[in-house]
């Protein structure tokens, strides 16, 4: 029989696995079970896991596309405005808009803004920075999640979440150790 600690609020229940196969397998079954608000944690990316959890987020790519376009237009616009509108000057007998010579800068700006979009977009979508997170309350998670252990946490606000049932379900997945995650 287990003894319950009094907890303020519960973030969810977390199970630890010690290899990738177990985690992926667990993830797949959790999804099959109907859980949606759950998250798997691993020290490195596992592609099978994404499939198992049906994760598909295209927004980063979209952001990059938009960023690229912005950069391109800014670059081209700036150059044309500067050399033809702001202060038109006869440079070496070239026309004011000698577009072939504007390509390099346009290109570089495209890349630059796109790269910003990729990185900051990714962090933003991931909700980072987030130095504090409930999962770190789990001692072993904090020790191993970034190194050599694999975790799966079902969140309390999942409609299907039931503390006891979920715990037992996780144990049934062959988790080494299941623990509550405090808010």
């Amino acid at each position, binding site marked *: 029989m287990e003894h319950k600690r009094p907890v303020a609020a519960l973030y969810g229940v977390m199970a630890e696995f010690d290899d990738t196969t177990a985690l992926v397998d667990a993830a797949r079954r959790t999804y099959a079970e109907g859980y949606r608000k759950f998250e798997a944690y691993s020290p490195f990316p596992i592609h099978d896991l994404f499939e198992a959890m049906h994760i598909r987020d295209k927004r980063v790519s979209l952001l990059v596309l938009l960023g690229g376009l912005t950069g391109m237009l800014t670059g081209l616009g700036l150059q044309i405005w500067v050399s033809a509108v702001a*202060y038109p*000057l006869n440079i070496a007998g070239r026309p004011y808009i000698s577009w072939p010579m504007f390509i390099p800068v346009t290109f570089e700006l495209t890349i630059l803004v796109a790269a910003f979009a990729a990185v900051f977009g990714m962090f933003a979508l991931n909700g980072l*920075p*987030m*130095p*504090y997170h409930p999962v770190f309350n*789990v*001692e072993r*998670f*904090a020790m191993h999640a970034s190194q050599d252990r694999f975790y799966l946490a079902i969140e309390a606000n999942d409609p299907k979440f039931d503390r006891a049932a979920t715990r037992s379900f996780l144990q049934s997945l062959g988790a080494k150790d299941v623990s509550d995650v405090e808010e």
Partner: protein
Amino acid sequence: MSQIFHRTTNIYSRLSILAAIVLAATLGGVVGLLHLSGYNTNQNMPVEQPVQFSHAHHVGGEGIDCRYCHTSVEESAFANIPPTKTCMNCHSQLWTTAPILEPVRASFRDNKPLHWTRVHDLPDFVYFNHSIHVRKGVGCATCHGRVDKMPLMYQQANLQMNWCVNCHRNPAPNLRPRDQVYNMAWEPPANEPDLGERLMKEYKIAGPEQLTSCSTCHR
């Protein structure tokens, strides 16, 4: 305790990022505005002079023509600062004992020139020519402001390159009939909106290509 940060850190971390961005923006803005302002070029700053000469009194009050003192304005790049003699033409009769004029009398007596401080001081690599501007119908007041209302002379325009070039690109709005050049109070006539264009043609004023060529002002 396995948490190394308090839960509030999340807010702070995001706020701090936001703050950094805002701070950078404001700093940049402030520096930028200062840079664009006339501060660097002493715009609107009255200048200490050896003699408290008042244009307001001489031009506004007495109605003396600019060219009485600035003799070379029509033939030379330099409009000329009058020799002490010019002052003494009148002030050997008027205010002959006024203490304020002592430096002038002293200069005339011991043949020592007065040392005025430049008010409109362009960088040495800029070659401005008064004679041609006057000839083409640019009024004194256009650049120097209502000198007849200035007890102490100050620089009204910011004299930044942009300011010069704006007019060189499109002189029309700043042109007036030649006979009005020295008229401080002249206002563009309401009944003739396209006066500028007319004068452009009449005075054969060159197009922007020539007026904005670098060597027009820099050599």
